[in-house]
């Protein structure tokens, strides 16, 4: 009886000391395995959202292990591999900014209730783009006047295309989804978004 009270007290004391509130954890390899196993056990495929989506890739793994701030010697080779895997289309990358605007506005696509294939870019969920659209998120940087200050030359087109296709090729632990790499957007859609960002006639730059 006394022993059980005592062990209860010890348990309660352990509870006070072992739990950290309000701070992100430092995840170890073992932690990653634990969460991955739990996801595999407790999730199921639905519609287009297959279980392959929770298979960790190299970028996710390193970012999870280093709280999104890995040492350069670990980040660089993976960034380079991601950059190499981007399929840049030949020629001019400026599509149609009007179509780009619709893609930037749309948050449809990739959810288990969506049809397969490209949907929207969800750009406004996180970024400010056109000054006319006040309903924009702030998770990403403002892209207001993006092309106005950068021009629309071939280098800038290539950078904008690559960044949308796979943001992790430029900054490994970027919070931005890899829109081309993940199959969220098609080549033509990314070109249209490049135009929305860079075309002087686009509301982003007016």
């Amino acid at each position, binding site marked *: 009886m006394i022993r059980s009270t005592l062990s209860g007290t010890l348990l309660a004391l352990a509870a006070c000391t072992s*739990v950290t509130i309000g701070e992100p954890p430092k995840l170890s390899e073992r932690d990653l395995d634990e969460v991955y196993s*739990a996801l595999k*056990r407790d*999730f199921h495929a639905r519609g287009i959202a297959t279980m392959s*989506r*929770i298979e960790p890739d190299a970028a996710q793994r390193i970012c999870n292990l280093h709280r999104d701030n890995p040492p350069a010697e670990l980040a660089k080779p993976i960034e380079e591999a991601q950059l190499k895997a981007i399929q840049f289309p030949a020629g001019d990358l400026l599509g149609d900014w009007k179509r780009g605007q619709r893609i930037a506005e749309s948050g449809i696509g990739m959810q288990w209730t969506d049809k397969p294939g490209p949907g929207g870019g969800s750009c406004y969920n996180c970024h400010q783009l056109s000054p006319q659209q*006040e309903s924009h998120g702030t*998770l990403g940087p403002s892209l207001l006047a993006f092309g106005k200050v950068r021009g629309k030359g071939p280098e800038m087109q290539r950078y904008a295309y690559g960044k949308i296709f796979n943001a*992790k090729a430029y900054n490994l632990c970027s919070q931005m989804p890899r829109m081309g790499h*993940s199959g969220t957007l098609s080549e033509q859609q990314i070109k249209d978004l490049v135009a929305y960002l860079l075309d002087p006639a686009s509301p982003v730059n007016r």
Partner: protein
Amino acid sequence: MRLARLSAAAAALTSVGAIALAQDTRKEIEKYQRMISDASPVELFELEGEALWKKKQGPKNASLEQCDLGLGAGVLKGAYAHLPRYFGDADRVMDLEARLLHCMITLQGRTRDEATKRVFGNEDKLSEMEYLSAYVAGQSRGVKMAPGMAHPKEQAAFELGRKTFFYRAGAWDFSCASCHGEEGKRIRMQDLPLLFKPEYARPVVATWPAYRVSNSQFKTMQWRLNNCYQQMRYPEPNYASDLTVALTLFLTATGEGEPYRGPGTKR
């Protein structure tokens, strides 16, 4: 009747809100939230939940009145505020919905498949789980949130929830912290609470489950997590699974100490 009037009022407010948005968005949204919480239909849902709690059904033709939500068989007062917690009879940590499901299976003799056929309802009719959640949660009003954190399995669940919160995966490389990890951020116009910090978690855990005015639906914590994972482009979490309970324990323990004042009313 009351519902119809409420949605008409909400529609009118929405158009007024849209015009005013440009002037002072945040102030307008706060005003709107105060107005809608005055006219919430949550009481009606609680009454419907009470009827379902007492209704004899399933192969054993039994009600849920003997369901032990952690404070003893049939004790409802304050039970929700102490969830999730470890249950020895099931040897696992359970949130409200996992526990209700357990009682449907053990007391009423129902199968898991049948009892989870329609866990998320719609604007025409809430699900049984949603009505019951409204009823049970409502009886913790004024009770400080204090989920189980003493048992080793509770601590393990908390840690799993905490790790999962920060673990990036899925088609878009998101963790919970991708949206709820930085101060003062929004998706479109929606403010994002920094849920791993007590000051942000407290008002959130004290008001779920909740009525959503924008779609006239009543939503539970299991739905909230399910919908987050949908938007994160993951596969779908299993209803009332250990990982979802672990996340809810992590959030609730982070917001511990806040007196419960739900079921709440959300935009």
